[in-house]
């Protein structure tokens, strides 16, 4: 539905709300192959603003010290609010990250004061009416959070929420693929699905964690790196790990089967 937005702001063209393929294509182009820097984050946040009835978006990622750090936003004002949230350590995005689930606040004015008093105070006069926060995660692997900001205090519809979740999963996938040459479409279709092979990838990730005594994030990267350096599918390598045909050894440059 185009024309004037329900919230009184001019509605951006959103022809692809019902087309996951188009969103994937646009996201793929926005992600490119560069790292998670401010320009990268700003491009992805712009996709959110283009495709969803939100007026701002921001991405914060987990630092080595397990703290959230703002990476980028769709515009400077949003970047400022996001930085306040991360600095205060409270707000919907921080809660989504900590609780490992989306935090949807359709009416920030009604709830923020009691849930996040310092953040609510900082928002005064900012014209933010609603916030929707989505953790960037794959199981126990936590990368950060995607925060969407809306002027009007209004919920996202079911299809809009589905789009937001799709974007957050795509961003997660992209972050997990950093350094690979894999095409976005390829990975998007196969990595986060529930097929038996992705179950094995998740199980293998846990096994590699135990074999090398490393974090779950690092284990996932090691598993993928092995597959790419041996020109194999990660699902096949995972199957070998789960079947105990392949082990990862600490201090070994080449893992032996």
């Amino acid at each position, binding site marked *: 539905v185009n024309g004037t937005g329900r919230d009184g702001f001019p509605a951006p063209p959103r022809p692809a709300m019902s087309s996951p393929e188009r969103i994937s294509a646009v996201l793929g182009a926005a992600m490119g192959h560069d790292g998670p820097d401010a320009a990268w984050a700003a491009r992805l946040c712009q996709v959110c603003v283009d495709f969803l009835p939100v007026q701002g978006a921001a991405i914060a990622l987990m630092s080595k010290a397990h703290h959230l750090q703002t990476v980028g936003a769709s515009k400077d004002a949003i970047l400022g609010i996001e930085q306040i949230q991360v600095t205060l350590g409270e707000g919907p995005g921080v809660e989504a990250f900590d609780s490992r*689930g989306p935090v949807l606040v359709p009416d920030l004015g009604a709830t923020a004061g009691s849930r996040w008093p310092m953040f609510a105070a900082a928002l005064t006069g900012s014209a933010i009416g609603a916030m929707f926060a989505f953790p960037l995660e794959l199981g126990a692997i936590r990368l950060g959070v995607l925060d969407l900001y809306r002027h009007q205090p209004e919920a996202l519809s079911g299809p809009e929420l589905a789009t937001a979740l799709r974007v957050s999963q795509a961003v997660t996938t992209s972050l997990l693929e950093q350094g690979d040459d894999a095409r976005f479409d390829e990975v998007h279709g196969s990595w986060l699905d529930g097929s038996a092979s992705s179950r094995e990838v998740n199980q293998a990730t846990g096994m590699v964690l135990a074999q090398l005594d490393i974090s779950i994030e690092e284990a996932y990267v090691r598993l993928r790196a092995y597959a790419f350096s041996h020109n194999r599918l990660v699902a096949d390598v995972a199957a070998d790990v789960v079947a105990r045909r392949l082990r990862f050894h600490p201090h070994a440059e080449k893992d032996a089967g």
Partner: protein
Amino acid sequence: MHDQGMIRQEQLVEAFVGLADTLVADFDVVELLQRLVEDCVRLLDAAAAGLLLADQRGSLQVLASTTEQARLLELFQLEADKGPCLACFRTGAPVLVPDLADHPGRWSQFATKARQEGFASVHALPLRLRTQVIGALNLFHTHTGAMTADDLAVGQALADVATIGILQQRAVARSHALSGQLQSALNSRVIIEQAKGVLAERANLDMDEAFTALRGFARNHNRKLVDVALGVIEGRSPTPDRAPS
């Protein structure tokens, strides 16, 4: 003297009271769904049961099943991609396949594989919230024949409990939060798979044993399965049944 009907009624009451007991504040949705598929097998004389939920892309994913065996999970997934489960999800109505041998054309790949695994019939029941279908409950039997109307009613009631459980997980049953709830539930499943891997490696268990160990530990310590799984992954909690290596 108890007749079959009485025994069954007692079993049913026991099952639903047990399920109701888990629906307390901040309960463990994965554990609830696991109990539910196990109740299905026990009460409905099924050989295997699986509960599948739709993700935000509309693909169905196995969230709970009575088996962790990879080849049976593949069968559930095949049913979800190209079988009765998908038809049930799309129409929101039960799909009954009393004899898998009678469906050579429709779902042929699924029917062939299901029969190879020794199953003769399959029933898929929708997980419905008002007009929205969020997933399906699947029951496999080793004998042919449609489930009785009574059994189907029990199966549907169990499916409804699952829906309520998933949606009430954070006391947010409003439809706008639905996808978020499903997302959290599906991510919990990924966490459990990762933890199974850690445990399988550390304690030299197969995946089925690893799951049983995780679950037993969670029950004995009155903790959520997903929290125990996170503890195992992050090395925060003592690993259940950790064997000296």
